[in-house]
């Protein structure tokens, strides 16, 4: 397979000169000396040297058979059959959310290798779900979890250690009650609040440029830490809803960000969870509607979209965009232990009593600590 000159990573002007001089494929360049090349393509010595080095490095050598059309090129556009893709997908595990109804609706939990967006009004539980996922991704594999680490990007300052410790302790408690055999017992030794916190890599970003910088440098971080299985960005909307002079620039930046996140999700096999805010959209007739922020084009970026909303005094989670799952709505609640099914109370006290009377939940919680 011949590799064309335009696919080399050179500057566009150099490529133009090469093509104009008649060099279409890298094979044409292989046997030239720098002086010859610079004369024929009217490049400087330096540029000619660079071209030949690039060709040698990336061209792979046309002598090594047709498949040597650049190892880099081959890796970049490796083709898989649909059957291989299906097998790969079935191997991908999901991250449980500890709410069995939501897990059932999502087909096991938050899927690894895809980007998911969680949107909702303030206070409905988006950060709680993100914190729960950050703890759940670390559940050992013998308990049905993924056993991975997490990178948590916090742009709002809502990552409070007090709460993370609560959720982590509850998860450890939950798993320790399920221990049945030796393998699980051994795994529990490495699943403690301390280790959970040490497997969470926290980044705090104060504005959108820092967020873009962090996402740009993440692929290197992920290569150094192959155990990372989840990336949480809480929230994407907050830094991007500042005043932008040029809204089209915001759209461009968001699209670029989305592309990078999708590339990381598929390339490194991680799940990406992002939080979004809600905004009001006025439609004709004076009606207003709550829609996810950041615009229509951002809506195409995540693979799966979850909408958390209130229905009266109940919290509901709806899947409103997903290629694999039916749009379902389930009820959930936020307890002192984290994100749970509604109506479930494994261990009293629950954080939110269903009747209006105030239970002394606070004092009981303090007593148990």
């Amino acid at each position, binding site marked *: 397979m011949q590799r064309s000159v335009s696919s080399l*990573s*050179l*500057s*566009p002007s150099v490529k133009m000169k090469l093509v104009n001089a008649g060099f279409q494929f890298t094979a044409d360049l292989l046997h030239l000396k720098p002086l010859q090349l610079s004369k024929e393509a009217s490049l400087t010595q330096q540029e000619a040297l660079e071209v030949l080095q690039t060709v040698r490095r990336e061209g792979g050598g046309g002598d090594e058979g047709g498949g040597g059309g650049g190892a880099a090129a081959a890796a970049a556009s490796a083709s898989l059959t649909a059957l291989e893709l299906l097998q790969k997908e079935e191997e991908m595990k999901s991250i449980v959310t500890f709410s069995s109804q939501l897990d059932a609706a999502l087909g096991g939990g938050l899927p690894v290798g895809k980007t998911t967006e969680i949107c909702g*009004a*303030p*206070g409905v539980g988006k*950060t*709680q779900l993100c914190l729960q996922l950050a703890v759940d991704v670390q559940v050992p594999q013998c308990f049905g979890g993924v056993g991975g680490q997490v*990178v*948590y990007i916090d742009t*709002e*300052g*809502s990552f*409070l*250690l*007090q*709460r993370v410790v609560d959720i982590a302790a509850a998860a450890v408690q939950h798993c320790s009650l399920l221990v049945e055999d030796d393998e699980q017992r051994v795994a529990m030794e490495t699943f403690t609040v*301390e280790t959970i*916190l*040490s*497997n*969470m*890599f*926290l*980044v*705090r*970003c*104060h*504005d959108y*440029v*820092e967020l*873009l*910088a962090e996402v*740009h*440098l993440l692929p290197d*971080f992920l290569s150094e830490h192959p155990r990372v299985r989840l990336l949480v960005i809480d929230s994407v*909307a907050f830094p991007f*809803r*500042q*005043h932008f002079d040029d809204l089209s*620039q915001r759209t*461009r*930046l968001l699209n670029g960000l989305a592309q990078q996140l999708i590339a990381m999700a598929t390339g490194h096999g991680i799940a990406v969870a992002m939080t979004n805010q*809600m*905004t009001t959209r006025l439609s004709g007739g004076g009606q207003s509607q709550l829609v996810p*922020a950041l615009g229509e084009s951002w809506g195409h970026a995540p693979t799966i979209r979850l909408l958390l*909303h*209130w229905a*009266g*005094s*109940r919290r509901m989670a709806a899947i409103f965009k997903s290629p694999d799952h039916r749009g379902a709505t389930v009820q959930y609640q936020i307890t*002192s232990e984290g994100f749970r099914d509604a109506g479930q109370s494994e261990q009293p006290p629950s*954080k*939110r009593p269903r009747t209006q*009377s*105030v239970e002394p*939940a*606070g*004092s009981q919680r303090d007593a148990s600590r």
Partner: protein
Amino acid sequence: MDWDQLELNPRIIASVRRVKLKSVREALCVSGPDLQRLTGLSRSDVQQLKTAAAVACRRHPPTPAVLLQGGYSGLRLSVGCPVLDQLLRGGLPAGGVTELSGESGAGKTQLALQLCLSVQYPAQHGGLDSGRSSTQPSTVVWTQVGPVPSPARWSGLRSIPSPPISRSSILYLSFHCYLGQRFLRVLSILALIHGSFLLHSSTARPYHPSHATLRAYHPQASTQDVSECASLSCVSLQDVLSVCLSRRVPLLLARQHVRLVVVDSVAALFRSEFQASDWLERSKQLISFSHTLHTLSLEFNTPVLCINQVTDVFSSDDSLGPVSGAVAPALGLVWANQVMVRLMMRRLQGTVARGDQSSTLRRLEVVFAPHLARDGRDAAVWREGVLGVARSDYNTRTDV
């Protein structure tokens, strides 16, 4: 940031300079192919450029959360009452914006005044150690929009003698005798803008400075300072607050004298400045205002308390929150998205008595917070301040 500070091939830096990319941050906001077209560099060069820019722009690499323990993430400002502190699991968090909303007369300003006191305590008593030695001025930046708290409210709080009534827009409180020249200069400059302000301290008398007074008070005041006052005096309250928040307050915070910022009240500020038809402009200003507050709070690890009013809720299918009552905090969804902790103070039916004092019962509730349960505590406003009441204290109580 200077391009020379990055570790890059000089050739790349030269081409970046040639294209006049203004700053390192710009390089991150332009996509890879666009940069290639602009600078004429190859893809790997552009990749290097972006990586170097990203390394320069990021604050810190991802760190394990376990290292946060015992650090600033757990800093809380006590409210001054153990019952209410238990509700808030320690107090106001130091790294985000807390909102306290409620009807008029609910006790919001009273609670905020109490916070101004507790911030002065040393850390082991729940304060933020902002009252250090008596030679250092310690202040709370209090930006008041609307009527000043009347002396009757003040007189009960410890160690604050009652100030004379005066309509003022900015009130700076200083609890120690010494007021640095610098502070006075800041205050007088702001005074000039508003035409009047109230300075309270145990030694200085309240006064209303004019141009001449400013000059007289600060013979070192340069012509630039005076002209700065003059040029700022004709802009709107909103612009002044943005200037104040973007320049003066960061200076004060950076010197670590100020450990609490209170804005009383946000709603009055935005409702008075904008007509109903200017809602787009109002949203923009609101976002930039709250963003500034949020950035200040995170940068300097200082709690920021914003007091808000309430509006009536007409339709019951408001999916912004659970159906909780006839009123909701003002300023809508735009503001609600910027707030980290939302508290609400309500007046209840019934009174509670203690000794010779009696007070209408209030309730302080957590509407949402990342680390708090949706819970509430009853409270009452006494001469000593806002204190939570335990159930056993009730004389009469009606559940609402």
